[in-house]
């Protein structure tokens, strides 16, 4: 097993992606709508296809724009179907995203079949190939700093997410906890809702090409859910989800290289192992966390407050 700069690049892209997803994912979890990440990551497809049809290019700007519009529409349609169709939100979400995804597939098949939008790539990503497409950040006679292009795109998305959450932290918190208070205080909770959906859509698209949608969904949901098992403090919750996201990416890639080597198995994919690692971290937190299974099973009673 030999380590190259490629491994560093893969870890860099994976980490940036995991953290970029974990941030909006935390607020999805708090609003009890984690599966909205799943829905949006599928529903952006017609947005991408239409953006390509209209603009004729695959440049990042149009792709992001198309994705953002599709993301907001998913949220909007889900809202409408829940309200007027008298179905629960999970079902409404299912109706909207499968339909939009199918429309996206048809659009691509009919009009843009020659474009390189590969279904396999969408699902599993092409993390292993990201080091092939490098951009130079800095160069002089002795030094050259190159990173994968995917790292730049996802890094920019991460910055966007940090900026939005930093600016609207208190507004997001209030709109998540008590939308009616936010509404009466004039803070437009629906606007915050759609902003969050836009963040999810943009992040999904940025991460799509590099790591695929499966790991995007995993990183939107699993790190925040793991953190939720460890703490009930919002600032720590965000910090822990970032830590879990980083650990999943780093350990995921390492184990994707190490496991097949030790077990004598064929190679595995890094993005798949990153999602698997996230799942394992969740399991650990569930077993050993402060509210974990072992603690509950230990049968020790907590001391009543007045006595302690």
């Amino acid at each position, binding site marked *: 097993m030999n380590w190259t700069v490629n491994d560093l690049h893969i870890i860099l892209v994976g980490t940036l992606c995991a953290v970029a997803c974990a941030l909006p994912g935390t607020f999805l979890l*708090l609003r*009890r709508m984690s599966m909205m990440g799943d829905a949006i990551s599928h529903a952006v497809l017609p947005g991408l296809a239409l953006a390509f049809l209209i603009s004729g290019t695959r440049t990042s700007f149009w792709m992001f724009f198309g994705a953002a519009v599709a993301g907001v529409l998913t949220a909007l349609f889900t809202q409408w179907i829940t309200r007027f169709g*008298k179905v629960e939100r999970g079902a409404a979400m299912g109706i909207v995203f499968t339909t939009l995804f199918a429309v996206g597939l048809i659009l691509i098949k009919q009009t843009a079949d020659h474009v390189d939008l590969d279904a396999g790539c969408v699902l599993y990503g092409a993390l292993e190939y990201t080091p092939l497409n490098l951009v130079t950040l800095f160069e002089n006679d002795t030094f050259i700093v190159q990173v994968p292009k995917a790292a730049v795109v996802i890094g920019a998305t991460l910055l966007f997410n940090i900026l939005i959450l930093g*600016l*609207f932290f*208190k*507004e997001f*918190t*209030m709109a*998540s*906890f*008590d939308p*009616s*208070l936010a*509404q*009466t*205080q*004039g*803070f437009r909770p629906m606007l915050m809702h759609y902003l969050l959906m836009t963040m999810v859509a943009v992040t999904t698209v940025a991460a799509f090409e590099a790591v695929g949608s499966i790991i995007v969904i995993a990183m939107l949901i699993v790190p925040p859910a793991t953190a*939720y098992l460890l*703490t*009930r*403090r*919002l600032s720590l*919750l965000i910090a822990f989800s970032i830590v879990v996201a980083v650990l999943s990416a780093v350990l995921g890639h390492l184990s994707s290289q190490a496991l097949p080597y030790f077990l004598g198995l064929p190679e595995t994919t890094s993005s798949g192992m990153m999602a698997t690692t996230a799942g394992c971290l969740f399991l650990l937190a569930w077993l050993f966390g402060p509210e974990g299974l072992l603690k509950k099973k230990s049968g020790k009673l907590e001391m009543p407050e007045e006595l302690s």
Partner: protein
Amino acid sequence: MRPEHPPEFPLAVHDLTVAYHRKPVLWDVDLNIPEGSLTGIVGPNGAGKSTLLKACLDLIPKTSGEALVYGKSYEEQRDLIAYVPQRESVDWDFPISARDVVAMGTYRKIGWFKRVGAAQKKQALEALEQVGIGHLADRQIAQLSGGQQQRVFLARALVQDAQIYFMDEPFAAVDAATEQAIIELLQSLNARGKTVLCVHHDLATVSRYFDHLVLLNMRVVASGPTAEAFTRENLQKTYGGKLNLLDDVAQALKNVGRH
């Protein structure tokens, strides 16, 4: 300007109708709530009590009619109103401390983008002390009892420093000590000239707690000073066939004489 709803009323509701899926929940509600009153809104389940508050606050769309706050639309008078929603309307497992929930009442004054400062945190702590749970300020809300959670909501309304308080069942499922603390708080607000509107369930305490009463069952059955509105006839009209609590009413009416 409507002559029947002069602007000295903190809340005037005109011809309000609200419907869900074309089924009316409130029908042609017309009300004037007097300044400085402690008003109870009473009626059976599904009578539209919470809906009335929410429609006045633009939280749900009105099918027709309007609500005026001192003669102007709610939109213009937001700062004058504090709203305490039903306790079950939020997720009490949300990772946040009691103090941070109370500080949310100051967000409108802080404005967009800006952080919660030391002054607001201090204000939040003082409000928590006022409702008797200052020592629980840093406790996560999931670890509070139902009564303590209700007090957190009241403290949050206090820091909003409003003129009119809209409260949706603050007495629902709280312990006796909390109920006492809440009523004392409402009375102290009332003594400072604030108007309080309170959705209430317990007929036995109505005449003790409120000086003004709205009896509601989709329409307004009666509205006026408690002594006039809280009669056997009105209660029967309000609760109709559903009144298998006739004994409760008898008990409640007995209390009228006592206070």
